[in-house]
């Protein structure tokens, strides 16, 4: 039977992942389990090193690469020792050439396959899918990444949370890096702005992991794809849909919708319900291209749904995408017989699934387009 994997995840170095892993290792040992440290990186942190005392550590293996001695986890020795629980730090680490695997998470898979439980640690920016986002947010790219599936394989994910101010305080007190590196760290990566963004990413990531696991447990019927598709609205939480038209005024609506989606941490879809047969050419084509381009810049999805009935088209897309929030631009004042017609938001409310909110974005005063 395969071992169980527990991952301690944090927004950045220094939040206390290794410390917490060791604490839990001690607790397991005191509960009578056979615990050993497969690999631990104390980063010259005296408190962490002190906490490792009392736990058996499998000696590291020395590998020589291009004349340099490198220390790595000794996978064969760990497998031979076969404790009940192994503590293996830094899941995203890249091994030195000559080791069994290129990446440490691959070592961990071998350990789990041998029936040994593993506690490990990782920072959120090491997750492959978040690497670009974190780089964009912080301006710093980490080279060592792990596929998101590795975190998905974990039986338990524990978020080690700390406020940015508390982490910076720890950094200043020399609890994260040695004295000579503190100022450089404070000036580069460890800014309140960066840490706030990373913390939000970490919190959201763990929430998504929990949600994904809950879905798998709660939906026993059908294929996995069918189960996930059936549960899309629950899995993704909020999802915004902005109704656009190939006109410059739609750009403002998209900006409003994007800001809301950022606040909610929700994906954003842009939808144009195109009348059947309307050609996409000339100015329409130019505006469609502009909307597609803006969607790409914002990380939103641009959809074109062909329908002669706007409300039906929106309702269909809202159901398919699991939309929870629809944003529409303010309509022109109705003229003639159109005054007798029910306003679009009301028609949308009736046609879309229960629980979908509709928000109207006001037009700007003055002329916006000709």
């Amino acid at each position, binding site marked *: 039977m395969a071992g169980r994997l527990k991952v301690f995840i944090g927004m950045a170095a220094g939040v206390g992942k290794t410390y917490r892993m060791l604490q839990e290792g001690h607790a397991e040992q005191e509960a009578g389990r056979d615990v050993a440290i497969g690999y631990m990186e104390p980063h010259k942190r005296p408190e962490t090193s002190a906490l490792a005392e009392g736990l058996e550590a499998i000696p590291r293996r020395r590998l020589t690469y291009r004349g340099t001695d490198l220390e790595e986890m000794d996978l064969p020795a760990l497998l031979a020792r076969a404790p009940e629980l192994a503590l293996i730090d830094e899941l995203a680490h890249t091994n030195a050439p000559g080791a069994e695997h290129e990446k440490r998470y691959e070592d961990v898979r071998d350990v789990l396959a041998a029936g040994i439980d593993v506690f490990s640690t990782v920072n959120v920016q090491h997750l492959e899918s978040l690497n670009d986002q974190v*780089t964009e947010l912080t301006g710093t790219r980490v080279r060592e990444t792990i596929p998101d599936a590795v975190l998905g394989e974990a039986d338990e994910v524990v978020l080690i949370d700390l406020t940015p101010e508390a982490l910076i305080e720890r950094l200043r007190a020399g609890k994260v890096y040695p004295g000579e590196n503190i100022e450089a760290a404070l000036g580069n990566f460890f800014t309140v702005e960066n840490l706030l963004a990373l913390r939000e990413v970490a919190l959201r990531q763990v929430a998504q992991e929990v949600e994904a696991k809950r879905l798998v447990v709660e939906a026993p019927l059908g294929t996995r794809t069918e189960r996930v598709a059936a549960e899309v609205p629950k899995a993704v939480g909020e999802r915004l849909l902005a109704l656009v038209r190939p006109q410059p005024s739609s750009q403002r609506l998209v900006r409003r919708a994007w800001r809301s989606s950022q606040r909610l941490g929700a994906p954003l879809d842009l939808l144009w319900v195109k009348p059947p047969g309307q050609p996409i050419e000339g100015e329409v084509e130019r505006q469609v291209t502009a909307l597609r381009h803006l969607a790409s810049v914002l990380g939103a999805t641009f959809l074109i749904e062909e329908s002669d009935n706007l409300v039906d088209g929106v309702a269909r897309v809202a159901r398919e995408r699991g939309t929870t929030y629809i944003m529409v631009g303010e309509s022109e004042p109705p003229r003639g017989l159109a005054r007798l017609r029910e306003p679009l938001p009301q028609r949308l409310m009736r046609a879309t699934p229960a629980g979908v909110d509709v928000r109207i974005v006001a037009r700007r005063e*003055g002329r916006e387009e000709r």
Partner: protein
Amino acid sequence: MTVEHLLIAVALVAGLIGGYLIARSRLRGRRSERPQAIHQILLPFTGTEISRRALDAALRLARAEEATLMPAYLAAVPKRLPLDCAIPAEAAKAMPMLEAIEQRAASQDVSVDSRIERGRSYRHALERLLSRESFDRVVVPATAEAGAGFSGDDLVWLLEKAPAEVLILRPDPEDRRFVTANGSRAAV
């Protein structure tokens, strides 16, 4: 003339008026859905503020020529990222700036059509925008601050390459007012 004749006449008139109103309403609807060909003035900018002088000049021109102003935020994407990746941090800077510009344009009755363009450098972003859209005029605020906005080389390049009339506004040392995401500010 009998009462029946009168009723028929009234019904005919009402039908004609109703038909006219429906046709007019549909025609207006179609017109409003179809954007029309327009003249455009490009106002490229970088960062979180733009010279108020340059913006006002672009707005004056747009208003006089009944052109659409296209404020374009240029974002430099680092080489380690794909050029077409989402850039939420840059977008977060661009959004309030575009909003501020549009507000000012709306108050002067000028139509706007905003853009955010990515490139490996500001010049590259501008090059991509120029290849994608057509403009009658480009208004560029030159800057006296080293490292900010467009360099002298960028402006020379623009004069040579832009398929439009280029209007470069020289910074006035006496007039250091800017439009920012939070409104206007005067530099000291």
